[in-house]
């Protein structure tokens, strides 16, 4: 295990009877930008806080750079945390905020302030050194909070929903700054978010969590293109999920029958005939038109049309399929426009329909 590698083994958190984090395993190589992604209450923040040491683990281990840090206090783990509301000390000016941890270590005033100023310079906030946090904007506060977290030279920086307090415009700007900073410092960032867009934009490794478990931990492209489970497919939002049962299995192609009677072909791991199966179909790869091949399309009634500029979102209800989404580019939509209530045939390519795994419960 290399310096800076973070590993979580069978980590569990229980609050009374409620299971917040259910025995998760996770490996984050050094220098990775890792995003913990999931809906609220999925256990992502609890996981982060256990890694930070602000929450005691009920069970399991946290290993950082080959050291088991599970029972160490926060400051002795080699982690630093940036809090959701930044938690800057309102009674201290920026330089004292940033120098706080050095003061706690008993370092003399002059060297600690010099170091703090250096970090403020790194975050381009040195011009504001004698201001109080309340005199800063949200983005500036975030930079100071980053400087304060980085002054301890952590191996892992933990960020708890760092962008949630910012307005949409600033969010995108600070997001780019975070990524740049991580690349420059080369340390591991673990970033908790509920925004899949944020995770996609930043992460080298996305960890999708649900109900205290890891649904999928992979590179963004893999999470997006090959979601491991129906939950991931729905949460990432770019796949239709069609549920049915496997009717036949032949050379990697599963024929899936939905309750309405129609059947679809999907590629993926072979399944037992008759077992329930979820099929994910990319919304932006669905086209309007009759299917050239069996099992790769259906005809349904348009229930809603949303114009999105470059594309048009169609919601289609078919037999046994409800609220099927097709994102069609504007050019092909307006060459053959359809209206709500029309019956439209939809089709897709064989590689766009994939079998989604089911969490083994």
């Amino acid at each position, binding site marked *: 295990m290399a310096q800076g590698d973070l590993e979580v083994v069978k980590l569990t958190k229980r609050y009374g009877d409620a299971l917040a984090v259910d025995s998760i395993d996770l490996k984050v190589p050094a220098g990775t930008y890792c995003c913990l992604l999931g809906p609220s209450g999925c256990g992502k923040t609890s996981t982060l806080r256990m890694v*930070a040491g602000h929450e005691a683990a009920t069970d399991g281990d946290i290993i950082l750079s080959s050291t088991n840090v599970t029972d160490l206090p926060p400051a002795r783990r080699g982690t630093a945390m940036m*809090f959701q509301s930044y938690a800057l*000390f309102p009674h201290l000016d920026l330089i004292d905020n940033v120098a706080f941890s050095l003061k706690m270590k008993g370092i003399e005033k002059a060297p600690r302030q010099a170091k703090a100023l250096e970090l403020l310079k790194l975050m381009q906030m040195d011009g504001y050194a004698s201001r109080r946090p309340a005199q800063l904007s949200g983005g500036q506060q975030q930079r100071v909070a980053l400087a304060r977290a980085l002054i301890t030279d952590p191996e892992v920086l933990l960020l708890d929903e760092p962008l949630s307090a910012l307005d949409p415009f600033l969010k995108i700007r600070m997001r780019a700054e975070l990524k740049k900073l991580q690349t420059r410092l080369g340390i591991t960032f673990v970033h908790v978010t509920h925004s899949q867009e944020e995770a996609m934009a930043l992460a080298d490794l996305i960890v999708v969590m649900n109900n205290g478990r890891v649904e999928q931990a992979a590179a963004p492209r893999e999470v997006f293109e090959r979601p491991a489970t129906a939950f991931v497919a729905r949460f990432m939002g770019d796949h239709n999920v069609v549920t049915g049962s496997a009717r036949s299995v032949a050379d990697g192609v599963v024929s899936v029958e939905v309750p309405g009677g129609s059947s679809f072909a999907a590629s993926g791991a072979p399944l037992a005939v008759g077992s329930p199966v979820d099929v994910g179909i990319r919304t932006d790869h669905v086209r309007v038109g009759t299917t050239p091949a069996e099992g790769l399309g259906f005809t349904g009634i348009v229930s809603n049309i949303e114009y999105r500029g470059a594309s048009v979102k169609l919601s289609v209800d078919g037999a046994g399929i409800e609220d099927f989404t097709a994102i069609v580019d504007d050019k092909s939509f307006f060459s053959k426009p359809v209206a709500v209530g029309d019956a439209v045939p939809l089709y897709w390519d064989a590689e766009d329909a994939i079998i989604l795994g089911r969490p083994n419960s």
Partner: protein
Amino acid sequence: MAVADQSIAVPTSKPKTRKTPLSFGRLASYLQSIPLCLILGFFLLLPILLLVFVSFWDYDFARMYPGFVFTNYVETLGSWVTWKTYLNTLKFAAIVWALTLFIGFWVAYFLAFHVRSATMQMVLFLVCTVPFLTSNIIRMISWIPVLGRNGLVNSTLVEMGVISQPIEWLLYSDFAVVLAMVHLFTLFMVTPIFNTLMRIDRSLIEAARDAGASAWQIMWNVILPLAKPGMAIGTIFVVTLVMADFSTVQVMSGGQSASVALMMKNQMSLLQYPAAAANAVVLLVLVLLLVGGILRIVDIRKEL
């Protein structure tokens, strides 16, 4: 050319804005402030003015003579007794302030940080206010059977064999005065400090811990500085209450200790109203200076 145009344009535009008549909206806000102005005017400003006025009058054993003489101030400030009494009152204020601050902070700290559920916090806070269901005088007098020569404390200690003779200084002493004042005024310290402590963002404490601060370092570097406004408000309450107190000093010291307010009360019972008024003005100035000093040290605006 442009400059000339501007210089002409400015005076013509000014009367326009001034011309806007006293609208109903502006009138309404003045009207709304009238009731409070009247109350403060009649019950605060007028009595103080009267007090200042009377403090310059002359008097003898029977009546007051309107005038403008400084004898009252000269006598008050020139008297050795006045200085001693003021020093005594300030001594009480200092001791009671230190004790109530210490006790009040820890009670508030316990309520705010160690009592987890909001319901329990509320219940315990209400328990703190229970003594206020009875009057100050009754709470004070109820110390007498506890502290007296044959009171609860003395008789228990004698029976246990800890002491052979009852302790004399428990009642009718400075000790008794301070004890009663601490009992009466601690809640005035607890409430504002509790209020400030409840407003401290808990993530600040986590952030301090994340930075490696120990429990004591968190206390010194985060909690105490942030509790300062509450402490200042509590200090103002306690100091002004102690400075103006006469009943506690009279009852608990058994007439052996003096306070400024007690001195004024005595002067009034001797019909020396102008002297009492001069004394009151001096006390008012002193207390205002104290409060001004506190406000200079701590910025309490955040709390209001």
